[in-house]
Every structure is written in C-alpha cells, then in structure tokens.
C-alpha cells in the first residue's frame, strides 16, 4: 500500500529523535508508522498543525503552549482537494489536519487516517450528540472529531430582492435576477444542491440525475454572472451580485460589515458539511496530536475559537458559553426544521466523481 512513503517518513522522524538523544527511539528506525504508540513517551513537545488560514482562535495556539508546553506550528492549505492531493503521496510531517467531512470519508477509504483513541479525548462529551450519532461519513467518530459545521444556502442583498429567495429556484431556474447571481464552481457542491432542487437526495448516484441537473444548469447559465471560487461573499459585499450560493458562516462574517445582507437555507434543503480534526497516518507526534484535539474540544477554548471565526460550532458546551448574538443568530444556526432537510454529502466512488467532473467541464464549456 503506502509503505514506501511511510518508511521514508520514519527515516526522517527517527533522525530527528536520534538527534534529540532519546535512546528509546533508536529502536524505532525501521518501525512503520503503525507502531507509533511504542514511542509515545519519547515525543518532543512539538506539533505540526495543517489548517485553513485564520481558522483558529486568536490566542488558541499560545494558550495551548502555556497549558501543555507543546509548541504548535501551523501551516496552511487553501482547499480540501489540495490537502488530499498532498497527503495521498505521503505524509510530510503533519500531525493534525482539518479535512471537510466528504474528504474524511475519502481519506478513511484511502487508509490515510489514524484511528483516534477516545480514551485520550475525554472532552468528546462536550460535543452535541447528533454529531456523534449522525455522522455517516465517519461512524462512531473513529477517525475524526468535529471542529465546525456549515450549511450551504443563498446569501442575498435585502434591498435588491423582491421577496426572500428561499428556494433554489431563484438561483438555478429563474431569470428574475439575470446577471446578478453567483454560484459555486465546485462540481460536487453545485450539482448536489441542484439534486435537492430536483427533489432528490444529494447522495443519489444515478447518472440520469446528473444529466438532468446539467440540463437545468446549462439553461440557467446565461443568467449566472460568475462561478465563484469560495469568495462569493466578497462578490455579494461589493455589489457585483445580489444572490450568491455560499456557506452560512461566510455570509455571517460579512453581515457584520453590511446590514443589507441576509442569508436563507432554501426550503428544498441543502448540503451541510462539517470541518473536522484528524490525525494523518505517519504523524510524527500522535500523542501530542491527541492532546491538542482534546484541548480544542474544551468548552472555553471552543468558545474562544467560535468568537473569532463565527462559524457554527458542534461543541454544545462551547455554544452554551457564547453570547446570545451568536447562539440565537438564525444565520449561524438555521432553524431545526430546515436543517432536518439538509444532508451530508457521501463519497460515492471514483466513477461518480468522474461523471460529475465531466458534467462540470461540459457545463463550463457550453
């Protein structure tokens, strides 16, 4: 399988340990990544955290260092695909990563993640129960812990819409806002929400459904101004478009700067997601990683993080500590009835991915 990269990694890390003069590690030169627990006691106080930019509290990393003495080095990636593309060739020294839920499933299937020892993460009790029981991408949370969750919906400018655009129709199937619409450019996000519009589950893997969605979108294409690359909120804020398909957290962030903006989850339901914390195979400091994950799931720490990033948090204990402006914010926490219609996207295999991608290429080329 992926033994070659794991071996090259252990050569690097064992060099580091030998340099540090920890005798016990000398035995582990030829150990594969799976036997990391044998040298748990010999880990140096460092952690390589691979995260999205600014996706952490302002002082979380310093506070963690004070509390545990472990120095966290945070590197950045921009999209889940890049994370996956980089890790699939071998882990280059990252201890904790922050993949989206759909990618967690991919990574589990590709055997890229370490199982988590729940005994070492007592703060798991802080997590809202539905994130443990209803996590189809990682049943029982064997490999990942939830960090934030998100839902896709429509951000809009109140003064420019005639009525609240609470249906996907306004974005996918109507020329009422011709030239003032921006949709996502990611094939999975775009097409699957279109499935919801067509009344189907976003996890149906029928090729006919893809064709149908493609036809709907191709018809709507003249009305779309831009297929944005995750910066839809900027388009809305600067007045380029009036309707944008975006994540609730992103829209919540710009609502702080402009009162004329609001957000709604369409009544047909939409895609929900959850960014998670996971440990990739071959991590050089797995024990520190577990400590770090546990620390993040602490109520106060979670509250500090949510204050900074203003994304919905799955940490019930942390949410309880937040002010009403966050807890009762209908954009950050949409009503339960509409969330009941939202689904997590499942990884449906390489063939489905290929069909989706070709449909997207055709759509963009048409």
């Amino acid at each position, binding site marked *: 399988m992926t033994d070659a990269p794991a071996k090259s990694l252990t050569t690097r890390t064992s060099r580091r340990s030998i340099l540090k003069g920890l005798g016990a590690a000398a035995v582990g030169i030829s150990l594969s990544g799976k036997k990391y627990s044998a040298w748990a006691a010999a880990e140096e106080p460092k952690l390589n955290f691979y995260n999205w930019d600014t996706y952490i509290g302002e002082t979380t990393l310093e506070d963690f260092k004070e509390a545990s003495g472990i120095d966290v080095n945070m590197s950045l990636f921009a999209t889940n695909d890049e994370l996956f593309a980089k890790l699939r060739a071998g882990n280059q020294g990252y201890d904790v990563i922050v993949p989206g839920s759909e990618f967690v499933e991919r990574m589990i299937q590709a055997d890229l993640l370490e199982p988590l020892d729940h005994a070492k993460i007592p703060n798991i009790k802080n997590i809202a129960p539905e994130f443990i029981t209803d996590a189809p991408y990682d049943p029982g949370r064997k490999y990942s812990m939830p960090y934030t969750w998100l839902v896709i919906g429509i951000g809009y400018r109140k003064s420019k819409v005639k009525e609240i655009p609470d249906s996907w129709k306004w974005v996918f199937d109507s020329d009422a806002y011709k030239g003032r619409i921006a949709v996502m450019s990611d094939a999975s996000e775009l097409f699957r929400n279109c499935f919801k519009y067509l009344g189907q589950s976003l996890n149906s893997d029928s090729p006919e459904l893809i064709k149908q969605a493609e036809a709907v979108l191709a018809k709507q294409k003249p009305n779309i101004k831009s297929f944005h690359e995750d910066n839809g909120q900027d388009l809305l804020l600067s007045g380029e478009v009036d309707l944008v398909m975006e994540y609730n957290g992103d829209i919540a962030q710009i609502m702080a700067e402009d009162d004329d903006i609001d957000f709604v989850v369409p009544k047909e339901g939409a895609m929900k997601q959850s960014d998670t914390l996971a440990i990739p195979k071959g991590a050089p400091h797995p024990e520190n990683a577990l400590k770090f994950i546990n620390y993040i799931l602490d109520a106060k720490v979670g509250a500090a993080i949510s204050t900074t990033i203003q994304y919905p948090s799955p940490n019930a204990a942390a949410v309880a500590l937040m002010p009403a402006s966050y807890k009762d914010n209908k954009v950050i926490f949409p009503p339960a009835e509409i969330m009941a219609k939202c689904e997590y996207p499942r990884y449906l295999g390489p063939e489905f*991915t290929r069909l989706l*991608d070709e449909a997207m290429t055709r759509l963009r080329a048409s």
Partner: protein
Amino acid sequence: MATRTQERRLAFLATALPPIAWVVVFFLVPLGIVWAYSFGQNQGLTEVDISGTFANYARALQPLYLQIFAKSIFVAGVTTLLCLIIGFPVALAIVFASERWRPWMLLLIMLPFWTNLLIRTYALIAVLRTEGYANFTLEWLWNQGSWLMTLVGLQPLGDFTPLQMLYSNFAVVVGLVYVHLPFMVLPLYAALDRLDKSLIEASLDLGAGHFRTLFSIVVPLALPGILSGIIITFVPALGAYLTPDLLGGPDSQMIANVIERQFKRANDWPFGAALSFLLMYATFAVIAFRAYAARGKPADGHGI
C-alpha cells in the same frame, strides 16, 4: 595540440554537465513518473497502477476537451499578440533611453510583478469591477459631460450605467496581458540592446520612413528576441488558471482549469497527466517548428 583538444573537452564537459545533470535528475525523472501515470489507471484512491493503457489519452482526445484546448490556444494567442504590440514600443523606449534612465525603466516594468499574483488580481478586480475605480472615474466624466451639456442648453445625458468589465473573456485577456507583459518586454530588451543604431540611421538617411525602418531593419535583427518573448508569453498564458478562475465568467474555462481539477477535485491523476502531456506535445511541436524555421534564416536582415 593534444592539450588544446583536452582543454576543449574539459570546457565542453564543464559547460554541458551541470545543466544536463540537473535537467535529468530534477526534471526528467519527476516528469517521467507523471508520464508513466498517464498510462495508468487509478487503483483505489491513492495508488496508480501503471498498466500501459491508452484510455486516458483516448478520453483526452474527445471533442469536449479538444474544444477547450482550441479555446485556450486562442485566448493565449490573443494575449501574446497584445503583449507584443504593447511591449515592443516599451522595449524600444528602454533601449533608446539614456544610461541613467534605463535601469529605472526596467525596474518600473518589473516592479508590479514582484507583487503577489493573487493580490495584484484582487487589485485589478478593485479597479475593474462594477463599483470599481474605473467605473467611478467614468461616471464622474459622464456627469461632467452631462453638466456641460446642460450648460450649453442641450439635454443632459441619461443615467450612467457602469461598464461590466469583469467576469468575461475580455477580463481574462486583460488580466493575462497584465500579468505577462514583462515576460515579453525583457527578452525584447535583451535582444534589441545590441542593435547597431548606425543601421537605423543609415536606413533613415536613405529615405525610409520610421515604420519601414522598423519592419525591415529592426524586427529582423531582433527576431530571436521576439521569438523568445513570444514563447515566454504564450506558454505560461496557456497554462494560467488562477486568472481565468478569478476574473473569468461562466464561459471562461481554460484547459489549465480542467487539468487542475483532475489533479485536485476529481482525484484522477492519470487523466490529468494525459491532458497535461497532450498540451505539452502540442506546445512543444509549435516551439520546435518555430525554432526550426528560424534557424534557417540568417540574422542579417535579408528577407523574412
């Protein structure tokens, strides 16, 4: 004479070994891996089984992808042409500038390009968007014009509708020209610098106009530089994906965007490799042809 040949040999090896060794180890080997991948298929999510299949190439040659290739070549070609037309006078200006001014002008051309591409693109967006500076200026001018009209007694101009300059193929070309201009200017400058100015003077003395001189004397002498500039501009423009992503409209999908998706979202490295290599074979053929054609011509200004 023996030592002379030995010395020659040594000189040859000293010149040849470093670049060749580098290219082989740090370029051909990595590229070879990806080339092998283009003949493989996905096995599971992370491994590629190199089975010697041509399925990826067959898929890449479908009309859907060929059409995108053609479109990308067209856009890159337009970009290169614009860069050439805009950049040639600039290169001339730098060459004819005095020794004092020359480094400053070179610096002024390069300076925008030491700013990060993403930031520069955002800045370009800030200028060109609906509520951007360009439109603000145009609106101001429009209003002034309107006011002038009323002064004279004519009907004022109607409401100003902002120009939609972004999210279209036009914006993509503007963005690409903006990014690639110095890639054209620098090689042109390097080639024009040794231009024997007395030739131009002679031509002018003999009665040829400036443009005639330009096309009959300057261009042929600077041809190697022009060709380098064209290659250096065209190829990266063809492979650009960030600019079309950020500035383009729903129609602006270039082949580089498709290739990028294969390596990332679609997780289909063999197919991405096949597309990349097709792109490379085609571009390479064009370059080789030009190099061959240019080699046949003597660089002395006779006939082109």
